């Protein structure tokens, strides 16, 4: 796809012009100071060039005023960079609440993408234009990084935890995805595309899929398969915390700490159950590390999120699955 000889990346997301504006401001200030210094040096070098080997220039006293000035003024200017950059950074890290949910699992050397309604893609991500998209990402092996230059979006994808990022595409088109954290032999081949489509085209694309089930309903199946409901049940036979309404709730731990149950907490509780033991429960939950893939974990998380009203509900796909009664009546 030869796009000629570009010197500046396309702006294809709501964040891109904001980043570029800050960049241009930085460029302008840098250019100003670099030129100021370069011209000063050149001017002094010529005006005061040595004309004879024996000349001795006059001593020049330092100037406190000047020192203070060229300390304070750059400091104030850099503070403007700081405030603007921080504001942008906070915006980048606060996805809108009604964003479309996408799960991404990176592994050497490919991106496995799954939409909430179940559509799977490899190395390609179809999204609608004008809609916020929130990515929940993890790695199966080493650290990767999901980078879309046209969106000015980048986030390290780390094994053992979830990383989130978001964007809102503003222009239909096809944009590079790069892995931007060195991950081994085929790091530079771990690339892909974001295909931004008109909303209608996107709906058609979603509907035209192979009809795979949604993340949440796949998660419900895993929940049953691994007999989680044996202990996690709403009645008196429960030996583990009730998972309904858990997502987004504040949880009190054995050691006195409290935390908000987010995706990372749920994932960790499945693979390392005793790391954050809930107050009032015994450390009897077995670990499912190695028994459930990262994609499976994402599905389980989606399922548990669907049990909570606080969980986001992507429009355009079937409503969240609700498990009414556990499959088994009695413990094993």
């Amino acid at each position: 796809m030869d796009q000629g000889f570009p010197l500046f990346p396309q702006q294809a997301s709501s964040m891109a012009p904001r980043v570029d504006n800050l960049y241009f401001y930085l460029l302008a200030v840098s250019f100003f100071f670099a030129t100021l210094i370069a011209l000063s040096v050149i001017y002094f070098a010529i005006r005061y060039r040595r004309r004879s080997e024996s000349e001795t220039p006059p001593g020049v006293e330092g100037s406190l005023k000047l020192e203070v000035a060229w300390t304070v003024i750059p400091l104030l200017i850099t503070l403007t960079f700081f405030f603007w950059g921080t504001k942008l950074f906070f915006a980048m890290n606060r996805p809108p609440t009604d964003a479309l949910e996408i799960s991404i699992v990176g592994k050497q050397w490919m991106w496995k993408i799954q939409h909430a309604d179940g559509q799977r893609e490899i190395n390609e991500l179809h999204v609608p234009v004008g809609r916020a998209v929130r990515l929940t990402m993890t790695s199966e092996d080493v650290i990767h990084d999901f980078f879309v230059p046209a969106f000015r979006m980048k986030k390290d994808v780390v094994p053992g935890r979830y990383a989130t990022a978001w964007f809102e595409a503003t222009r239909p088109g096809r944009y590079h995805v790069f892995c931007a954290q060195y991950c081994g032999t085929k790091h530079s081949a771990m690339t892909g595309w974001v295909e931004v489509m008109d909303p209608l085209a996107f709906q058609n694309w979603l509907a035209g899929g192979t009809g795979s089930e949604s993340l949440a309903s796949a998660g419900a199946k895993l929940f049953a398969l691994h007999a989680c409901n044996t202990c996690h049940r709403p009645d008196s036979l429960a030996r583990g915390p009730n998972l309904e309404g858990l997502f987004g709730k504040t949880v009190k731990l054995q050691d006195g700490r409290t935390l908000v149950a987010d995706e990372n907490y749920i994932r960790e509780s499945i693979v390392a159950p005793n790391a954050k033991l809930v107050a009032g429960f015994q450390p009897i939950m077995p670990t499912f590390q190695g028994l459930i893939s990262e994609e499976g974990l994402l599905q389980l998380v989606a399922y548990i999120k669907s049990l909570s009203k606080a969980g986001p509900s992507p429009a355009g796909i079937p409503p969240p699955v609700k498990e009414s009664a556990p499959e088994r009546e009695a413990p094993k």
Partner: protein
Amino acid sequence: MADARAPAAAPSDASVTHAGPRDLQHHFDTMEQQRDASSLGMWVFLVTEILFFGGLFLAYTVYRSEYARAFAEASRHLDITLGTFNTVVLIVSSLTMALAVFSAATGRRRALLVLLIATMVLGGVFLGVKAVEYGHKFHDHLVPGPHFRFPGPYARQAEIFYSLYFAMTGLHAAHMIVGIGILTVLVLQARKGRYGPAYYTPVEVSGLYWHFVDIVWIFLFPLLYLIGRHIH
């Protein structure tokens, strides 16, 4: 730092025994300057050692706060009796070392030799006890790696505890071994009457090193051995 130094090729230090020109290295102007340099050098080196151990202490702190229960559980499998004994041994060895420095400074050659050897023996006892402890850990399958076994739900976190245990106590033991080597050299030199009130800098800076290694243990002991005693 003192600025005025008389430019001199020979030292002006004329006190007691063995302050001959052979003790003053050619690039120093006076014995005082040489002593200041040696002392400052050892202090700077000890600062680097703090940072060196610091990385491990940081890792320990991070995981201890993350896996408090697991670390407490794992810690209970350490032998607190042997650990306490070793702590006392090291503290006494610091006493003997400090007295050795004092002996050198006051010209008590025999006392210096006895105290240096006592320090070495105590260091050796410490290492012997550590070897016994390591043997126990090996026997109990608590050495991280393919043969690690830890009952209960905290196996993986306990393995991290033991990785840090072996790394930190191992690094400490290595420093002890080096320390005993240094003391050996000191003993050999002291036998020849090398040290006296005019020149005992090597004893003094070795003492600093020994005290530092002791202090590291003073931190290691509670962090590794004592954390499981109250959390239930």
